[in-house]
């Protein structure tokens, strides 16, 4: 079966972000960018399915600016067979991305689509669910294990309070949680080989899709700073402060 895996270019998770002085957005000039960590887990899962002989082809896709092709090349180096870039310089919110991905699903007809559960920039946690809705597929969100059983996909989901297992009728959408797998690093020969793998570029217009959003970003501001307090010298002093100063324990 064919597996489609979506990836997003985001700020590297180690970078400390700065808000622009005019409050219009976060400042991304000259900031190190990388593949969203949850998308790395998605690519890894797709590649493992291929290595197990379950998947026959892994297609990586992204929606974003030209520079996002770097992340597609990373996916190719990690083991994806080919890539599709839906190029847009606009600010694409979750619904727009899901609409573009739905068109790619229509063209490619994958049996399984894997996405990260959330991107670490917008922290939305929406695109996979929206894609499932738009394509009429079931969704296995926050997955910590997936298993293909004939026409059915069993997904173990991380839910508040524990784990839930659901059975989904294929084709289906899965979004990855942290414990699904541990992504590998790309090896140098694979990075070289990835440069020669096919990468198609499409525009939202060519797909016949409108990626504009009903949301306006009014402003972005830094959060209220929390001031550090004091160091205490002993457990006794700590208990005393909590009882008599902070009054949070009896």
């Amino acid at each position, binding site marked *: 079966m064919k597996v489609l895996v979506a990836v997003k270019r985001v*700020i590297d998770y180690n970078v*400390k*972000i700065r808000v622009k002085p005019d409050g219009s957005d*976060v400042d991304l000039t000259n900031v190190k960018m990388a593949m969203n960590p949850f998308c790395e887990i998605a690519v890894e899962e797709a590649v493992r399915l291929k290595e197990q002989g379950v998947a026959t082809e892994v297609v990586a896709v992204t929606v974003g600016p030209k520079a996002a092709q770097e992340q597609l090349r990373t996916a190719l180096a990690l083991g994806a067979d080919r890539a599709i870039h839906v190029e847009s310089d606009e600010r694409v919110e*979750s*619904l727009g991305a*899901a609409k573009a991905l739905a068109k790619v699903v229509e063209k490619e007809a994958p049996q399984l689509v894997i996405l990260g559960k959330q991107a670490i*920039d917008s*922290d*939305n*946690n*929406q*695109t996979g*669910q*929206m*894609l*499932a*809705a*738009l394509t009429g597929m*079931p*969704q296995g*969100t*926050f997955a910590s294990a997936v298993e293909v059983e004939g026409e059915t996909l*069993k997904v173990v989901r*991380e*839910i*508040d*309070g*524990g*784990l*839930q297992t*659901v*059975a*989904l009728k294929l084709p289906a959408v899965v979004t990855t*949680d*942290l414990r699904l797998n541990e992504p590998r690093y790309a090896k140098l020969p694979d990075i070289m080989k990835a440069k020669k793998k096919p990468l198609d570029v499409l525009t939202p217009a060519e797909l016949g899709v409108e990626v504009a*959003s009903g*949301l*306006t*970003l*009014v*402003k*972005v*501001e*830094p*959060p209220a700073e*929390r001031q*550090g*307090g004091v*160091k*205490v010298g002993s*457990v*006794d002093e*700590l*208990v005393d*402060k*909590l009882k008599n100063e*902070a009054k*949070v*324990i009896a």
Partner: protein
Amino acid sequence: MSILVLAEHHDGQLADATAHVVAAAQAIGGDIDVLVAGQDLGSIAEAAAKLDGVARVRVADSEVFAHQLAEPLADLLVSLADDYSHVLAAASTTGKNVLPRLAALKDVAQISEIIAVESADTFKRPIYAGNAIATVQSGDALKVITVRSTAFDAVAQEGSASVEAVDAAVDNALSSFVGEELAKSDRPELGAARVVVSGGRGMGSGENFKILDSVADKLGAAIGASRAAVDAGFVPNDMQVGQTGKIVAPDLYIAVGISGAIQHLAGMKDSKVIVAINKDEEAPIFQVADYGLVADLFEAIPELDSKL
């Protein structure tokens, strides 16, 4: 305006989060209905009817909603949404699963995890793990919103809303429930606890987390963990506090052997009082802690236990 709040419930009980989401609905203003969907909902609907500010509780009692699967629940919400200007749910794993699906089916944006209501169409929400706060305005006719419940104080329970059944013809051929493994604990729920004691990589092993038990019992605390402790396999993921886990804001948060990575701070820095116990005096957690104790946790925790 009219607002529909999707009730959160577990094990036949209305979850506390619902009272917080109703508070967010009150901040938006308008008539508030609560939808309770599931199976055998009698006592849950009664509890929802007591929430202040709720006009009507709508009950969709059917086997198809028994396990809160996203596909039928979103279809149910789609069938009701035309009566409302806003649909709200807690930013729980249920709310996050279902509401984006509803939004896409209605061709509108979804606004995730709001922490403040500026007006009926403008909201504040954290981005970049809480390192920036975005103000977003929705131009959509229907606003679909998940709410960070710790950011809104719960409404009181002195109301008396009417309760009526929803006649929903929803079926589900796409997904089915296989099973679940829920952590059994006598402790308070992590998201609602007044005190949280969390362990990090410094705990060293899952076995060592047991030394937190007695302190947690004495304080009536829930036990949490950092992502590093979850990644190391010490404890299950449902204990994770942080950007990718649970967001908590208790009166007292005690971080034990936690260095204070950005993504962990995103999950707990709105706590009223933060205590950090760590042997590394340079650990970033001390920059947000009200009280820091530089000590070996394996000595400090038993001592703390003996003095509580």
